[in-house]
């Protein structure tokens, strides 16, 4: 999940009887699957939680461009390079759709950027892992985009209209991302011994960080209940994580690769796999900023923002000059 630990400001879930008429009307709309639009009345906690969640999701799309962008100039063929470029360009678009959705809630784009750069807002832990080899680009498309899709598909039905519409657009574009990643993995896994080792190594390094993308286990997921009542969270973290494992293990088998989990076993009774939890201490460390690439990612965003300032200002000045000239000519 691109939004992993979103603090909800609601204080326990109220029943309809406990609500004031305005809030009750709002909750009844949510319960009836009627979308909430930007100018409709909404509880302050709903608005704040959504800004956090959508903002975190948007930042993840943008920061997520960095580990993949790292390989654009080094892609093994011109075709792979064009595909990767198109994929990374899509992610920029996803960031934009989500920032626009968050802006309808009364926060500005620049405010959100500043909050990312000051560390006040987070992005997904997964992008704090480095992409060391070309096989990592395959693993990222296959596993990271795969996990993102798992989370984004249900969010198409989320209660907030602008968020839901952004998710629908994004989901349309995501399946290409996962398929191009798996395509790279197939090539590597069926290639030379060295390529196969690279593919296995990429799976080894990205398996647990991908499982972490769904956020902490339900037992430690304190803010879920209110978000679920508001329908800005549709499934529990563990539910999505299980679904992801069940879907991904056969795909790894097809590649002839081994999931790095000795305890992994099919459980006939529950109709799903038993699998090991990721190291949650590592997860919380990465969220706090101690992951292998946290520093580089934020530095790259800061540099882009600071070095781009004169371009943004220059274009604003140029637009103003043109506007004044036009007024003068009238």
């Amino acid at each position: 999940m691109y939004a992993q630990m979103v603090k909800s400001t609601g204080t326990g879930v109220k029943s309809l009887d406990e609500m004031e008429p305005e809030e009750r009307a709002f909750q009844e709309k949510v319960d009836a699957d009627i979308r909430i639009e930007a100018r409709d009345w909404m509880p302050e906690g709903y608005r704040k939680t959504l800004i956090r969640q959508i903002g975190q999701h948007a930042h993840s799309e943008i920061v997520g461009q960095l580990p993949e962008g790292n390989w654009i100039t080094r892609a093994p063929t011109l075709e792979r390079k064009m595909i990767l470029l198109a994929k990374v360009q899509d992610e920029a678009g996803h960031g934009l759709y989500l920032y626009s959705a968050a802006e309808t809630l009364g926060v500005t784009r620049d405010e959100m950027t500043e909050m990312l750069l000051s560390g006040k807002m987070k992005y997904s832990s997964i992008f704090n892992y480095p992409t060391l080899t070309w096989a990592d680009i395959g693993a990222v498309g296959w596993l990271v985009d795969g996990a993102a899709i798992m989370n984004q598909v249900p969010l198409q039905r989320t209660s907030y209209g602008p968020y839901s519409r952004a998710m629908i657009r994004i989901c349309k574009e995501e399946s290409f991302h996962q398929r191009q990643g798996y395509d790279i993995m197939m090539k590597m896994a069926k290639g030379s011994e060295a390529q196969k080792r690279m593919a296995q190594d990429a799976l080894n390094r990205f398996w647990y960080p991908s499982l972490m993308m769904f956020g902490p286990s339900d037992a430690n997921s304190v803010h879920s209940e209110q978000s679920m009542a508001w329908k800005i969270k549709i499934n529990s973290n563990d539910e999505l994580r299980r679904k992801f494992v069940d879907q991904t293990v056969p795909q790894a088998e097809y590649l002839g690769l081994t999931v790095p989990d000795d305890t992994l076993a099919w459980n006939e009774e529950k109709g799903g796999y038993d699998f090991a939890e990721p190291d949650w201490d590592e997860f919380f460390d990465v969220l706090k900023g101690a992951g292998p690439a946290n520093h580089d990612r934020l530095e790259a965003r800061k540099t882009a923002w600071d070095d781009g300032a004169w371009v943004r200002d220059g274009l604003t000045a140029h637009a103003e000059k043109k506007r004044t000239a036009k007024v003068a000519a009238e």
Partner: protein
Amino acid sequence: MSKEWPLYEIFIRGQHGLSHRHVGSLHAPDAETAIKNARDVYTRRNEGVSIWVVEAAAITATAPGDKGPIFEPSESKIYRHPTFYDIPDEIGHM
């Protein structure tokens, strides 16, 4: 902090013969740049044959609270629909 670029709403005509539809929004310094950016963001997969951009601040909208007075009066005017009228079968399609 620099001044933020204004927000533009983007409308795309998907195919010849259809109307423009709202697809999303973006920030740009002026309308010309908004069109260029809209092309890059919203028509990467053949989604359009024409783009309109409108500064979001220039849009006037109905308020959610006015929904009743504005839209409810038409609910009772069922005679505005063709199915209100019973025309005998012998007349054929009308």
